């Protein structure tokens, strides 16, 4: 962590830590086991305004920068909580803020800031279009003053815990496009009042993440719910990627620190063969190494966040931060599990839960492979694989 955190940032971190203390290991164990949404935790964060960090003051948010927001998410994970349950409420609104019109912003942002409107579902991924977003097939066809949507999305998180969903759908058939990055559009779907059939099927996955398959059958969206221009949706989504990657990096750093803390403590206390296991270099060095990697990744995260806040290009840094942090947290998770031995597998020790949770950062919202492809092709100028 840089020694240059401002007084406000230290205060924010302290306050989030205090809040998280009321949601200790046992709470998350219970939530995980029941595969329940951590509603109480989210309500407390919402009530204290933390999820509205990035919403400008004129819309009732705190108007803070990305670094501040990243500190909030990092601290949740560092305290043993799971920011994955709510991080999207913080940043999905960015698309609306940057590309929505005045009316849409006035209509939705104050409610999102106060927590009265939950907008934490963003439907992009499809069974036939994962990493290759420009291949999505879910169609939105304009009919008078509305669009009719048909298709299927997969891995769409927190749909049941949202009032509004952002949807990326095809408005021009792929084959008719010259520029394949065009032809997609972003819509606001108000799920409190759906016309047509929106079927949400929870997916049974490795972590407690509330992610779903979503089927659209003649779902009607008023044309006024189109965000920005028709056909520009892919660009709008890309615009949000850097911020999202930096925030995800911070979450992974938080996890990494949690694992290193737990591992070093356990290694100092657990006595085998008459001495603490941490006295053995085979146990101690991997923990120290994971620590070093987490700290190094953290520097890239702050570097990326600073560039972002200065309005500079930061695609490379944001991508590297996300990948390095995901790698470091995963290394720390593995080391922590090794250190705990058999107890690492016991639910009561919480390591296995965090171990499962932190694994996600290497895969979603973007796979580390795609980060390397970005670096190889966009930064280093090597030939493209796609």
């Amino acid at each position, binding site marked *: 962590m840089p020694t240059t955190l401002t*007084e*406000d940032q*230290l*205060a*924010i971190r*302290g*306050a989030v830590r*205090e*809040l998280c203390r009321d949601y200790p290991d046992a709470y998350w164990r219970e939530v995980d086991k029941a595969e329940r949404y951590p509603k109480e935790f989210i309500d*407390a964060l919402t*009530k*204290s*305004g*933390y999820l*509205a*960090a990035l919403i400008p003051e004129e819309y009732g948010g*705190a108007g*803070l920068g990305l670094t501040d927001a990243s500190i909030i998410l990092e601290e949740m994970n560092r305290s043993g909580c799971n920011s994955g349950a709510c991080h999207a409420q913080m940043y999905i609104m960015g698309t609306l803020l940057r590309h929505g019109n005045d009316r849409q912003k006035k209509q939705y942002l104050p409610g999102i800031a106060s927590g009265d409107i939950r907008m934490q579902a963003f439907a992009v991924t499809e069974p036939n279009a994962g990493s290759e977003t420009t291949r999505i097939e879910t169609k939105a066809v304009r009919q008078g003053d509305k669009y009719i949507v048909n298709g299927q999305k997969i891995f769409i998180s927190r749909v049941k815990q949202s009032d509004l969903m952002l949807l990326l759908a095809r408005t021009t058939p792929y084959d008719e496009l010259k520029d394949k990055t065009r032809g997609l559009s972003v819509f606001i779907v108000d799920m409190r009042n759906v016309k047509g059939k929106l079927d949400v099927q929870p997916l049974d996955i490795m972590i407690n993440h509330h992610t779903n398959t979503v089927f659209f059958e003649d779902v009607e969206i008023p044309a006024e719910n189109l965000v920005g221009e028709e056909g520009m949706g892919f660009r709008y989504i890309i615009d949000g990627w850097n911020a999202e990657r930096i925030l995800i990096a911070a979450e992974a750093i938080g996890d990494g620190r949690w694992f290193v803390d737990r591992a070093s403590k356990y290694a100092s206390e657990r006595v085998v063969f008459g001495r603490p296991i941490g006295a053995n270099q085979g146990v101690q060095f991997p923990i120290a190494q994971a620590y070093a990697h987490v700290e190094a990744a953290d520097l890239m995260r702050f570097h990326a966040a600073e560039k972002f806040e200065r309005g500079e290009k930061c695609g490379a840094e944001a991508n590297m931060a996300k990948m390095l942090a995901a790698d470091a947290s995963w290394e720390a998770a593995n080391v922590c599990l090794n250190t705990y031995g058999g107890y690492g597998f016991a639910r009561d020790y919480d390591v296995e839960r965090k171990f499962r949770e932190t694994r996600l950062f290497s895969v979603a919202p973007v796979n580390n492979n795609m980060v390397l492809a970005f670096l190889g092709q966009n930064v280093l100028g090597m030939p493209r694989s796609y």
Partner: protein
Amino acid sequence: MKILVCLKQVSAKESTLRLSEDSLHVRESDLSFEINEPDTFALEEALRLKEQLGGEVVVVSLGPARIQTSIREALAKGADRGIHIETENAESVDRTWAAGLIAAAVREEKFDLVLTGLQSDDLGTGQTGVILAEFLGLPHATIIMEIQIEESRIKAKRELEGGWFEWVEMPLPALLTIQSGLNKPRYASLLGIKKAKSKEMRRVTPVELGAEVSGTNALRLRKIYVPVKSKNTEFLDGTPKEAAAKLVERIRREIVSSPS
């Protein structure tokens, strides 16, 4: 109602405690800090009274520059202004000195109610509040679990031993030392943290308050140490009466020869 809350910054519960070289304190470099737990309940109680009755909540704290983070935290939670008494040795065991400084800093303000924590998580003397009450000439009650204001009087529920309580009543102004658990302290909100920056923080030094810089030396800490863990079971034989007599004898001897 004008309420003063005394806050102390203490080492955070998760801090690793290692003795300093001189065995007079724990190593500061290892520590992170937080507001003493009972004080957070005192602050919450003050904020609730203000919400009910109107008025002002002021926080005062004594210590080095780092304690300003705790004062700011209280301001972020809703206190109106802060007073920082700047001194290097907040941990001095001489609580008469500490209470004297606080009294000198706030006497003029004529608070209706002064709340402190029941004791601090570091020194745990439980004295500052009651000595402060004496210095300010206020009636006081300790270990408070509930407060009711009635006109110009205050009723307070004291915790006694073994699950017993008692209600005491006194005229305002008064001082109460608060027990943890009487309410649920709020979290600082994000907007609260932003607003705290523009709230008043008065700084005063002991010299400006006309007091000694380093305490009166009436009470001095000689040494702190980590108790050595040991386990030793011994059976005292004889009739119950004889065994009891032996036990009393042993207790007398062992307390006298406890580690120095």
